[in-house]
């Protein structure tokens, strides 16, 4: 079932087409991986979806609405949440205060059918073991990632975009976060993850989309797509082995 549909979306910066007529469907209850080399347009696409950029052309359909070009705070209130790869939290704010912000400002508690619904349970679900009154300035990188995921979960989204949440983490931490993401399946959420770790992609994703130079290069089942010649040529390298 369709969670989010991208229709012929293009984003130009001056003469450069960062995203070039991309059409995609992200399915509900599925985890879709979004991969591609640096500069392929993945981040731009995520920014288009979350409202940070306005598309030069095309539509983004969330349910029956076209959310293309809508302001980010409006997009999140309609149910599309995203994480930032390097979340910059004000260092004096506490874990509790950060998770509380979407509860107050997005206020989608009524849409939460499953899972944790208040600050302590969300924090717990995301593996944050420290006191909720700990300030962001004292959190480790891994905890900051967990907090960022918690923050996005507090938006009670129907579409969740996870932007390289596992980048730079240790093997253990990355596995833990992957497990967290897997637990979100079956809640009726459309999950999109951007990652460079192919192991994670093949483990977690039901579907994979490969971008290259702003265009859609390939999509399909992870193992099948990642062994395609065109994908190895553009992104993975000939000697890549799954």
């Amino acid at each position, binding site marked *: 079932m369709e969670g989010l549909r991208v229709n012929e979306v293009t984003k130009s910066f001056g003469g450069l087409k960062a995203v070039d007529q991309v059409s995609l469907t992200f399915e509900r209850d599925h985890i879709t991986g979004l991969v591609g080399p640096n500069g392929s347009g993945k981040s731009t696409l995520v920014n288009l979806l979350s409202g940070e950029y306005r598309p030069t052309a095309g539509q983004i359909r969330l349910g029956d609405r076209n959310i293309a070009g809508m302001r980010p*705070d409006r*997009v999140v209130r309609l149910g599309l949440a995203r994480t930032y790869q390097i979340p*910059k*939290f004000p260092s*004096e704010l*506490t874990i509790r205060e*950060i998770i*509380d912000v979407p509860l107050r400002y*997005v206020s989608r508690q009524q849409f939460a059918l499953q899972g944790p619904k208040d600050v302590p349970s969300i924090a717990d679900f995301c593996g944050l073991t420290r006191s909720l009154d700990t300030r962001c300035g*004292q959190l480790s990188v891994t905890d900051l990632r967990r907090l960022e995921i918690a923050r996005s979960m507090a938006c009670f989204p129907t579409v969740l975009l996870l932007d390289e949440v596992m980048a730079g983490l240790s093997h253990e931490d990355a596995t833990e976060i992957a497990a967290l993401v897997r637990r979100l399946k079956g809640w009726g959420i459309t999950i999109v993850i951007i990652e460079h770790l192919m192991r994670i992609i093949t483990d977690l994703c039901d579907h994979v989309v490969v971008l290259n130079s702003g265009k859609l290069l390939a999509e399909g089942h992870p193992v099948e797509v990642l062994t395609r010649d065109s994908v190895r040529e553009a992104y993975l390298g000939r000697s890549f082995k799954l």
Partner: protein
Amino acid sequence: MIANRSIRALPYLLTLCTGTVLLISQDPYWIQLVLGASLLAILALSWDILSRTGQVSLGQAAFFGIGAYASALCGDLGWIVGWLMAAAVCGVTALLLGLLTLRLRQVYFTIATIALSLSFKVLILVFGTFTGGASGIAPPMIGDGNPNVQMCAVLVLVLLSILASDLFLSDRYRPAFFMIRTKPSLAAVSGIPIVRTKVLAFVVSGMLAGLAGAAYAGLYGYIVPDDVFALSWSIMPLAATILGGMDSTIGPFFGAIALKVLEGVARNYVGGVGYQIVYGVVMILCIAVLPKGLAGLLAAVREASSPRHRATGAGVTERVL
């Protein structure tokens, strides 16, 4: 959190006590001092409210002057109506300017606020027939010159400013303001309406500064454009807040008092307008050495000597301010 609450009650208590003491003692020298410090405290608090969203305003002078003139131009209707007009005009001005410039990079907003003071000064001069032009205008005196009424009116305004500052430090606003300052995109994807929130802070900030201007006008009975639109009305609250500590209520409040003291000292050594050097010196020293101001220094001292800290060696987990 009890220590927390008593610190936050200090500004209210100090204001009320000072008012009571002065009402009894009627000492004109101290009343003057307190009035001066009060106006600065109101301006400092109004500046800090907006600063929490990451916007540096140099517009307090503009609103101060606009408020002074708005109340002066309503002279016949009495000082209370004058104050209401001051708040209304400043609120609308802040709304319009804010909607236009709060979406720009910080420095352009700051420049816009400087332009605001200069533009309104020119307007006053251009419409000299109504406003008295460069030679000034006589606003209605608060309470017809009764010093007790004047002092109470100003102290009520101080309490109002403290309240406003505390309101914007509550759980609903404080995290949102800080997130807007630190990373607006993160704030937006957490549901915070950025421009609307900044405009709200700006409007309240402008209204408080305007009321301070109206109060100033009503205390001395005569105002001239060069005085009420002077850029120093924008710089003093900045220096006071940085000295006392930003992002709090006690910071701007006690910073205003501290700055008044420093100003008095500087005036003794440097004549004319040169004493304003103290503002620049204060700002630079604090930002370089004491980024959280005197309040931050006190908090650090408290932390270092608290038994909890010594036992666990952990950092502060409690909000001290």
